[in-house]
């Protein structure tokens, strides 16, 4: 008999209690993992905007609640272009529109045809639109595939019918799922003349991107630069709040779960008072009794965590299939989400079982053995 086999035997002997603890852990882990993968998915979707232009860094208005609310004018774009170390600066207007039920947030990119090459756009079929061409559009190849449209077809967007003049590829999935319009046309459709959402910057080859970025930020305190997904919160406060809410929920889940686990373990302690008294009487050290109780809790936490992760996959899939969230929510199961789930499960187990374990270890053998 080993410590492990004793622990497993104890868990198996009290199936109802063990199931209760494992379920409490599973529900907490499911909640935390689901929140994490959903927020990761939202962050990835938002940050994907930045990847389209294959820029060294992106410039946005500072402190907006949503990055798509960022607004920069032509003068600012020109200032960015003239910043030392900047090779190219492409101003782009980004909008979203509901095309159909499957595309509730279809991405629309307003960009001058002269900037397409430096933006990393390759025309796969047809041609680029003219700079001021009315009612012309290019579709990303994935969007064209999804919508079943080809060059020459009509694509209804922004309340007008537009002729598909080309099919493009950016090499970035997110960009290839949208459409590109001449910048003035998209500005007009959305009543934001002379305004762009983001400026995609490429640095002169050989120069340090970080240095150019830092110099730029010092010269333009009203603007912010983003180079990585982790810097995304600089220009999108919603994501910062969402991340904070997820962290808060994680802490709450651990605390609430620990109370449930602790309560169940305490009930178990009362049931097993004679057993712990006997173990102490025959010479078990307090530390060994603590290890026994905590080990039982940890094993149940691991089982509960595995169930919780499984449930979170199902719940995330269920959320994605809801009509209101279809096409908006793309869950992102990352290692961080699983780690977070594991931390929640194990945290609950340790916090919840420590007090009962210490109480069990400190039972007076004589009193415990006389317990009825």
């Amino acid at each position: 008999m080993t410590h492990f086999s004793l622990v497993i035997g104890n868990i198996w002997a009290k199936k109802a209690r063990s199931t209760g603890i494992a379920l409490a852990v599973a529900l907490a882990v499911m909640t935390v993992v689901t929140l994490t993968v959903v927020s990761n998915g939202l962050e990835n979707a938002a940050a994907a905007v930045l990847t389209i232009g294959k820029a060294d860094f992106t410039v946005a208005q500072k402190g907006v609640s949503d990055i798509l609310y960022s607004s920069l004018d032509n003068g600012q774009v020109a200032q960015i272009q003239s910043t030392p170390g900047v090779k190219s600066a492409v101003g782009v207007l980004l909008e979203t529109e509901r095309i159909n039920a499957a595309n509730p947030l279809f991405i629309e990119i307003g960009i001058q045809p002269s900037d397409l090459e430096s933006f990393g756009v390759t025309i796969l079929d047809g041609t680029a639109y003219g700079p001021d061409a009315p009612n012309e559009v290019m579709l990303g190849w994935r969007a064209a595939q999804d919508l079943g449209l080809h060059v020459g077809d009509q694509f209804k967007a922004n309340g007008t019918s537009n002729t598909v003049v080309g099919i493009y590829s950016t090499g970035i999935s997110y960009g290839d799922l949208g459409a590109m319009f001449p910048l003035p046309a998209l500005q007009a459709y959305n009543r934001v003349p002379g305004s762009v959402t983001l400026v995609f910057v490429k640095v002169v080859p050989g120069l340090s991107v970080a240095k150019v970025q830092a110099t730029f930020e010092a010269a333009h305190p009203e603007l912010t630069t983003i180079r990585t997904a982790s810097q995304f919160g600089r220009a999108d406060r919603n994501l910062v709040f969402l991340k904070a809410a997820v962290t808060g929920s994680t802490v709450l889940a651990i605390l609430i779960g620990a109370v449930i686990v602790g309560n169940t373990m305490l009930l178990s302690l009362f049931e097993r008072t004679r057993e712990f008294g006997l173990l102490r009487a025959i010479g078990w050290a307090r530390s060994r009794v603590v290890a026994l109780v905590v080990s039982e809790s940890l094993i149940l936490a691991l089982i509960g965590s595995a169930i919780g992760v499984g449930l979170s996959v199902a719940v995330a899939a269920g959320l994605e299939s809801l009509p209101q969230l279809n096409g908006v929510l793309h869950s992102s199961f990352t290692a961080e989400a699983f780690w977070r789930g594991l931390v929640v499960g194990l945290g609950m187990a340790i916090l919840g079982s420590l007090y009962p374990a210490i109480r069990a270890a400190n039972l007076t053998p004589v009193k415990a053995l006389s317990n009825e």
Partner: protein
Amino acid sequence: MSEHDVDTRPMIETHDVKKIYADGKVAALDGVDLSVSAGEFVAITGPSGCGKSTLLSLLAALDGPTSGTIRVGSYELQQLKNADRFRRQEVGLVFQLHNLLPRLSALGNVEIAMMGSDRPRAERARRAQSLLRDVGLTDLSDRRPTQLSGGERQRVAVARALANDPSVLYADEPTGSLDSKSVSTVLGLFERLRTDHGVTIVLVTHDVAVAASADRTVHMLDGRIVEP
């Protein structure tokens, strides 16, 4: 005492041991002086509530005295820093209600006493089997307590008490719930322990016949040792 000197003192020695409960209102032990030689088999008798079990729990370091001194072997119990280790290494305990863990087999109930000792796992299992053979339960080692008779359970409890080669065995009413045949078996085991292994045995009992099997009987009344 130098390391070459032979310790000729009694195995167990108590001096003026008192145990007071309930904020000084109840004296369970009221100045007990007891001496037990190494290898001796002593029975403690007396009416219920006279302090027999309390004395046994103090001798086993399951509880501490209010005052007085207790020595078991080379251990002064009032100065004991690690009572768990003392119980594990020096003491074997047998209870009236055997106190076996219901979800473990007979073998597991014996082996569990050795968890925390220095014995490797394989040796623990071998020794548990050997002890069960000694108490005549070889064929029942995989049975759970509920599948054993009262006498068989008590024999498992004796095997468990011997698991760590104790120098003293304390038994609290070990035959209290047994039929006469099982009583004889358990007493026979005790006798063998004493003769074959030199274990010092202190047994608490109500039963005069059981007490008669001991080398000496100590009678208690109102927390004191008295003349029978």
